[in-house]
């Protein structure tokens, strides 16, 4: 039980920064909260609504996204889209992520359990394609 919680926390920590990267990458076109969640889910990235919605706001307050209320047929919705600043910063983050991947991957190759390593590298390839 305690171990599960520890793993949960570690996974959350790993995911936290990457969610920013994924959201910025997917908001080249304006989305409202729920549609952004759907969009990410369709591409294989499950993110809690309770995590995504506050994240959108935070990124907006940091100037990486901009938003506006749009009146639509059923109800008004708040649309978010990457800002000028976000556009400038995203390639920097992407480059950093790429470098990290290239550095960390070989480090994990030393994993003494060959079975698990094969399974892990397999699933990671599935996710990136």
């Amino acid at each position, binding site marked *: 039980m305690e171990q599960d919680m520890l793993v949960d926390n570690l996974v959350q920590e790993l995911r936290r920064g990457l969610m920013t990267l994924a959201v910025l990458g997917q908001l080249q076109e304006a989305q409202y909260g729920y549609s952004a969640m759907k969009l990410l889910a369709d591409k294989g990235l499950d993110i809690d609504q309770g995590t995504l919605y*506050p994240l959108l706001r935070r990124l907006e307050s940091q100037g990486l996204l901009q938003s506006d209320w749009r009146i639509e047929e059923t109800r008004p*919705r708040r649309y978010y889209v990457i800002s000028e600043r976000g556009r400038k910063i995203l390639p920097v983050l992407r480059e950093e992520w790429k470098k990290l991947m290239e550095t960390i991957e070989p480090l994990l190759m030393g994993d003494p359990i060959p079975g698990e390593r094969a399974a892990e590298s397999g699933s990671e390839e599935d996710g990136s394609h």
Partner: protein
Amino acid sequence: MDLISFYVKEVGQRLPATSREDIEKEIRTLIEDTLEDESGAQGRPVDQAMIVDVLKRLGSPQKMAARYLPERYLIGPRLFPQYVTVLKIVLAIVSVLAVTGFAVTAGLSSTAGISFAEMLGKVIGGLMQAVFQAAAIVTLVFAVLEYFQPDLKLSEENWNPLDMKPQPEEERVSLVGGMLAVIFTIIAAIVFNFYPEWIGVSNFVNGQWLHTPVLSETFFRYLPFINILWAAEIVKEIVVMARGRWTNPIRWADVFINLFTAVLAAIMLTGPSVVALDPAGLNRMGWGSLDAEAVNGLMTAAQMGARVTLGIIMGLSLMEMGKGLYRIITERRMLATA
């Protein structure tokens, strides 16, 4: 009120007023979006069970609101270890002082008519009050420091490993030491300004504290100047802690504070006495009436004590001032030769 409105209000209550309305509106539309989608996917109209499910996925209002807020601390992780240390020291000192004070007074008190348990109750009550007040002051001072943390972080950014070279004891800036100085100065200021009757003779009679003040009217004419010096001392300590080291302007400020302290102590020492015992007050204290000779003896002793204290304060201030000046001069010489 329906479940959704209730949820949205619960979240909104925990958010700052400036963004509350907007976030409430947004969460509501997002919940409606989710429900619309769910209802389409499940092929049935929205019902209570569906709403419960969607709200569960969003998480409790507390959790949801917390995610919208930046992490804020009254006292953050940087200051917390020093906060605990200072709190322990201050509470220990205050407890000892309070217990001794009460014990001495209890020993002198006429215990007729009061049970031991009642006395003990009073002592514990007084101790609790002293401890809570001290804890409140410590917390407040640290919270203020936390609020001005940007300054502290600034000094951390300019941090240079070479600054870690062994420094003489007086050069070192200790956050705990500085905090203790600030807190005890504040406690002294509060006592002298708001509870001056506690500086005097106290006696516990018939379940009630009686006080005869010792400080004379002359003392209270000096108090505004003493307050200015205390305020200057507190500002100086906080600046030193925020900077993380002694700079020349701070040293000069320290020299002037010490100079004015010495001058004020000298004026108080040579002028009319700052303590006075009121014979009528003493006679009301429950020790029975004292004759003129006893009152005179007490008065002389009190005045002597005050003069000695002022003399010590003057001497220490002059010494500190000399040390400060010496540091300013030697540092200049070191810079000149470097």
